[in-house]
C-alpha cells in the first residue's frame, strides 16, 4: 500500500528497486550458492556506491541524516530480489557508531565502512537485554580490557573485517570493535547459502581506542542496535514475502488442471488473499514502527511485534506458495524454494516469531492495563 512517501523518498525507493532488480534475483542467488559465497560482492559494491549506508548516518558524520524508515525502502527491495548483502548489519553498525557520544574512536572505522573498505557487522547475543535478561557467553575484564568467550549465530562472519561486539559485562556493559584477526570464526552454512558464524574470543585484548561506549551509554546503544537489526530483518522479510506471493500468483494464473487455470479455484484464491492481507498489514506495521523508532517514540514491544509478525507471515506465505506450486515447488529446480529458504534464515535471525511473541508478552505484561 502507498506509503505516502516524500518526493525524495519515492525517488530513493525507485532507484533501490532498479539496483536490486539489476543485481539480484533467484538466478544470481543460485550462482552465489554454487560458488559457496555468502555474500554478493558486486551487489554490495553497488549498494555502497549508492550510499545506502549513509542514509542512517547524521550529516555531521558524512551521512544523509535520514532514518531507518528510509533505509527500509531499500531493504524491502533487497528482500524482494533475494539480494545477499549485509545491508541490515552494516547499517546497524553505522547507525550505532555514528551515535556514540565520543565519536573520536569510531570516526575512522565509520568512514571506512561508508566507503566500503571495511565491513563491520554487529556481534551480539544479548537480545534478552531488552526485557531484563542477561547474556552469559562472554567475560570481560575491565581492568586489563581482556575479552573471553564466544557469540553464536553471527551473520556475515565470513566476510566481516571487524565485529562490533556487545559485551554484557555486569554493571558496565561495553560496546567495542574487535578486528577479525583477533578472533576465531567457525562458519556454518545456512539453507539459502548465507552463513551463521560462531565468533570466539580467546583472551582477546581490546585496546581503549576500540571501545566505542561503556556503561549506560553502551547499554542504550546496544539495545537500539539490536532493535535496528530486528526491524531491518523485518523490512527485508516484508519484501521477500511480497515477491514470493507475486511469483505464486503468476504461476496459478498459468498452470492448468481440470481444463482451467488453478488460480480460478476458490480454495487457492482464498489462500492467496490471506497472503495478500498478511503482506499489507506487515508493511503498515513495519513502517509505522520504523517511523516511531526514528522519532525515538517507540515502545520496545512494538519492535518485537514487528519482527514476530514479519517472521510468521513470511514463513506462512512461502509455505503456502510451495503448496500452491504443487510438486514443482518441492524441487530444487524451481525458484519458489529459494524464497522459502531465505525466509527461514531471516525469520530466525535476530529472533523468530515465538521468541519475539514471548518478549512482547514480557514487555507488555507488567505495564498493561485496561486503558482502552
Amino acid at each position: 500500500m502507498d506509503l505516502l512517501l516524500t518526493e525524495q523518498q519515492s525517488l530513493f525507493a525507485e532507484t533501490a528497486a532498479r539496483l536490486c532488480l539489476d543485481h539480484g534475483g533467484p538466478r544470481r542467488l543460485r550462482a552465489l550458492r554454487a560458488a559457496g559465497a555468502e555474500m554478493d560482492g558486486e551487489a554490495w559494491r553497488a549498494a555502497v556506491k549508492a550510499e545506502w549506508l549513509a542514509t542512517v548516518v547524521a550529516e555531521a558524520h558524512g551521512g544523509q541524516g535520514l532514518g531507518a524508515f528510509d533505509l527500509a525502502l531499500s531493504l524491502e527491495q533487497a528482500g524482494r530480489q533475494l539480494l545477499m548483502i549485509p545491508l541490515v548489519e552494516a547499517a546497524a553498525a553505522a547507525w550505532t557508531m555514528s551515535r556514540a557520544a565520543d565519536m573520536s574512536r569510531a570516526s575512522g572505522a565509520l568512514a571506512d565502512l561508508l566507503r566500503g573498505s571495511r565491513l563491520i557487522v554487529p556481534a551480539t547475543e544479548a537480545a534478552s537485554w531488552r526485557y531484563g535478561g542477561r547474556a552469559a557467553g562472554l567475560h570481560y575484564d575491565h581492568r586489563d580490557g581482556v575479552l573471553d568467550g564466544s557469540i553464536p549465530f553471527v551473520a556475515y562472519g565470513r566476510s566481516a573485517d571487524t565485529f562490533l561486539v556487545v559485551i554484557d559485562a555486569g554493571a558496565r556493559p561495553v560496546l567495542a570493535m574487535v578486528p577479525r584477526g583477533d578472533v576465531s570464526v567457525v562458519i556454518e552454512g545456512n539453507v539459502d547459502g548465507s552463513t551463521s558464524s560462531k565468533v570466539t574470543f580467546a583472551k582477546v585484548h581490546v585496546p581503549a581506542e576500540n571501545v566505542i561506549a561503556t556503561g549506560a551509554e553502551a547499554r542504550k546503544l546496544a539495545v537500539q542496535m539490536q532493535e535496528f537489526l530486528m526491524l531491518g530483518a523485518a523490512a527485508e522479510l516484508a519484501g521477500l514475502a511480497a515477491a514470493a506471493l507475486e511469483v505464486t500468483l503468476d504461476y496459478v494464473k498459468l498452470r492448468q488442471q481440470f481444463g482451467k487455470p488453478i488460480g480460478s479455484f476458490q480454495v487457492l484464491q482464498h489462500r492467496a488473499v490471506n497472503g495478500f492481507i498478511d503482506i499489507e498489514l506487515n508493511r503498515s506495521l513495519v513502517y509505522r514502527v520504523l517511523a516511531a523508532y526514528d522519532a525515538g517514540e517507540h515502545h520496545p514491544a512494538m519492535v518485537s511485534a514487528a519482527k514476530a509478525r514479519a517472521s510468521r507471515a513470511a514463513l506462512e506465505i512461502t509455505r503456502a506458495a510451495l503448496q500452491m506450486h504443487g510438486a514443482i515447488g518441492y524441487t530444487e529446480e524451481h525458484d519458489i524454494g529459494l524464497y522459502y529458504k531465505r525466509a527461514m534464515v531471516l525469520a530466525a535471525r535476530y529472533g523468530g516469531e515465538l521468541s519475539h511473541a514471548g518478549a512482547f508478552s514480557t514487555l507488555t505484561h507488567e505495564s498493561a492495563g485496561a486503558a482502552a
Partner: protein
Amino acid sequence: MGWDNTTLFVDDDPADRAFRAEVRDWIARNLPAELCNRSIRIDPPELKPWHRKLYERGWIAPHWPKDHGGMGATLTQQIILFEEISRVGAPTPYPHGLNFIGPLIIDAGTPAQKAKHLPPILTGETTWCQGYSEAGAGSDLASLATRAELDGDDLVVNGHKMWTTNGHFADWMFALVRTDPKAQPRHAGISMLLIDLTSPGITVKPIQTIKGDAEFAEEFFVDVRVPRENLLGALNDGWKVANRLLGSERFTTGHPRNAAVLLNKAREVAELTGAMREGGFLQKLATLEIELLAFSAYYRHAAALHGRNRAPFSMAPVIKIVGGELGQRASELLVEAAGGFGPLAGDLTVGNHAVNPAAEMFEMRRVTVGSGAVEIQRNIIAKRVLGLPS
C-alpha cells in the same frame, strides 16, 4: 514505558489531537452512565436521547457535508468520535440512517427526499433499517426476488425481506427490490425504494439471535403501495445506487477498537481466574495483541490514504475481513480466559462492571457474516485486486 493496546490510535495531526481531547471531555460530562458496558445490546428507542445529545452538540454526522447538517469533517475526525464513544464502553448511534441511507440520499436523492428524510435522521426521530437480504438472497444478493410493479403513480411491493437489523423498531426501510424480472445481468433489474413501514400490507416479525436478543427481523410485503417518488435514483438503477456506499462504512464496523476492548476484557477476566499466569493464555494473548497492533497500523494507514483520496480498492474488504476475524478471535480468548465462567448465561462481575464473555463471543459471530460474508470479500480481492481468473 507503559503499554496500552490503543497506542497506535494516536493522532498525528495536532488539530485531531485537540478534537479528541474536546470529545473526550464532553463525553465524560454528558454520557449517561447506564448506557456503558451493557452486555446485551441497547435497542433504538433507548438510544434516542443519546443520539439527540450528540445531535445538539453538532457531532452526530461528522462525515456529512455542512449544508446538509454535518460537520464536513475528515474521516479521521469521524473515527475519533467513534473511538472516544466506544472507549468508555458506550454504544455508537446505529449506522443505518447516518452512515448508510443518509449519505445515499445526499448523493442520489431528489430535493424533496432530502428535505423529508435528512433532518429526522440527524435528530434521531426516525429509525431506518436496510432491506437487502432475503431468505434466498444472502451472499448472492443479486438473486433477490421481492418485486415492485409499477401501477399508476405507485410501485406495488410483494415479497419477503430478512435479517433486517432493527426491522422491528424501524420507521422506514431502504430496500432493494426487483423492478425488471427479465433484465440481464440480474442486477440491472433492481431498484432502490424508500418504504414507510407503517404502510398497509406489511407484517414485521422479530428474529431471536444466537446471543438471545432480537437484533433483527423479517418483513412480509403483500400488495404494499409505495409512491413512485420514493424511488432513490432511477428505476432499475438500484444496484449502482447501493454500491456507491460500500467502503466508508467499513471504517466504523471493522474498527480495531472492537478487538482492543475485548482483549482488555480478556486480560481483566484472566486476572480474576488466574489464566494470566498460564503460559498458553499469555502466548495467545501476545499473538492477538501483535495482530491488533498490525491491524491498527493498517487502519491508520488506510484512513490517512482515504483522506487524500488515495485509498486502494482493497482497503474496505481488508478492514472488513481483518476487523471481523480479529474481533472474533479476541472474543474467543475472552471466553477461554473465563474458564468455568465462560459458558455461564449470566454476567460476570469484574471490578465495578459486568462482563458477559459468552454474549460477547456470540455477538462477534455476526461480524464475519453481515453486510457481505468474509468469504465474499475474499472473492472480491482475489478477482479485483490479485487478478485471479474466474
